[in-house]
């Protein structure tokens, strides 16, 4: 990692030294002492501690500037970018918004967001399957988001890997569309376990697909009983006012006196 991140943390680790002094018989006619010296380092360090440190650093920055940072996660094709396009267009006059786009390749999503007039940064992870806190740190450094704004982080479309990586977000929002199976929450439990809001998208297609709204919620609550739900369609606009209301409650912009 780079030198500006402060990742070279001196986390405490205790060292226990031990040497063995013991008589060591050889196949010749005398014996003498050897010293075998090994060091055991009691590391006791979380494998993701570097990521978690940077995530907390991001979180502190967002809190200090009252930036509502949201980590949007889903499988590919559930409509994250469409939801953002619609949201950014509808809320343009009410909030200052920023977007960080995560994809393995291309800037297609960033181009779509850019077309709404929103400041956007594209992260291409190459072969990587998730965003991490380090990438967000640098994207934010370049972006310099204003105070009292919303930062949408659209993670790589993947319901597995991004679950493990804290980015410093305030809320993790998992999006599922009705064209996916209603058993997805128990097939990919980690993502639903770590999210606070579940947006069920493409509800205009409900008449055409065997998707049970009750079942998907039941499955999701088995994994995470405190998860909240919003049902939306980016095509018809149904349910979007509730999503905008949710955003307004979370951002809590101080009123001008």
């Amino acid at each position: 990692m780079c030198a500006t991140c402060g990742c070279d943390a001196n986390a405490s680790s205790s060292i226990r030294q031990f040497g063995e002094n013991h008589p060591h018989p050889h196949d010749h006619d005398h014996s003498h002492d050897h010293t075998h010296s090994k060091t055991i380092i009691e590391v006791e360090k979380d494998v993701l501690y570097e990521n978690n440190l940077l995530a907390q650093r991001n979180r502190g920055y967002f809190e200090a500037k009252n930036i509502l940072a949201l980590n949007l996660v889903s499988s590919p094709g559930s409509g994250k970018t469409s939801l953002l396009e619609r949201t950014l267009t509808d809320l343009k006059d009410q909030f200052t918004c920023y977007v960080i786009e995560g994809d393995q390749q291309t800037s297609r999503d960033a181009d779509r967001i850019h077309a709404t007039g929103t400041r956007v940064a594209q992260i291409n992870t190459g072969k990587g399957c998730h965003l991490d806190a380090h990438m967000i740190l640098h994207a934010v450094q370049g972006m310099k988001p204003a105070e009292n704004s919303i930062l949408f982080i659209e993670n790589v479309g993947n319901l597995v890997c991004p679950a493990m990586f804290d980015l410093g977000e305030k809320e993790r929002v998992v999006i599922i569309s009705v064209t996916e199976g209603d058993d997805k929450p128990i097939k990919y439990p980690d993502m639903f376990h770590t999210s606070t809001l579940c947006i069920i998208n493409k509800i205009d297609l409900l008449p055409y697909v065997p998707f049970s709204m009750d079942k998907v919620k039941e499955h999701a609550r088995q994994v995470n009983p405190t998860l909240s739900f919003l049902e939306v369609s980016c095509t018809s606009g149904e349910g979007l006012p509730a999503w905008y209301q949710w955003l307004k409650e979370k951002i809590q912009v101080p009123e001008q006196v």
Partner: protein
Amino acid sequence: MHELSIVMSIIRIAETESAKNNAIKVEEIELDIGALSGIEMTAFDFAWQQAVRATLLEHSKRKINHIPGEGQCMDCAALFPMQQLYEPCPVCGEHFVSVQKGKELRVKSLVVN
């Protein structure tokens, strides 16, 4: 394949800790990996073989403590073994379960010289 990122983080921790202790060789590395940590061991082993090449860990003995999942019901306080995050409490059937063990993903110790 987030397992590759995980292995890379482990290598970085081993290198940092070894450098602090002026060690040139890691003989053994001990890891704690919980059953609910999100690590798929087959993918982890595959990533490990590829990633440790030409690092301090290339010839290290790897010891893994697999920690089974344990949940506690928030309603009736029962402790029970947990294989999956969506399992209900076996005593009262509620889903308000707090994971007590099994989320571990730690470098526990290194033996260096």
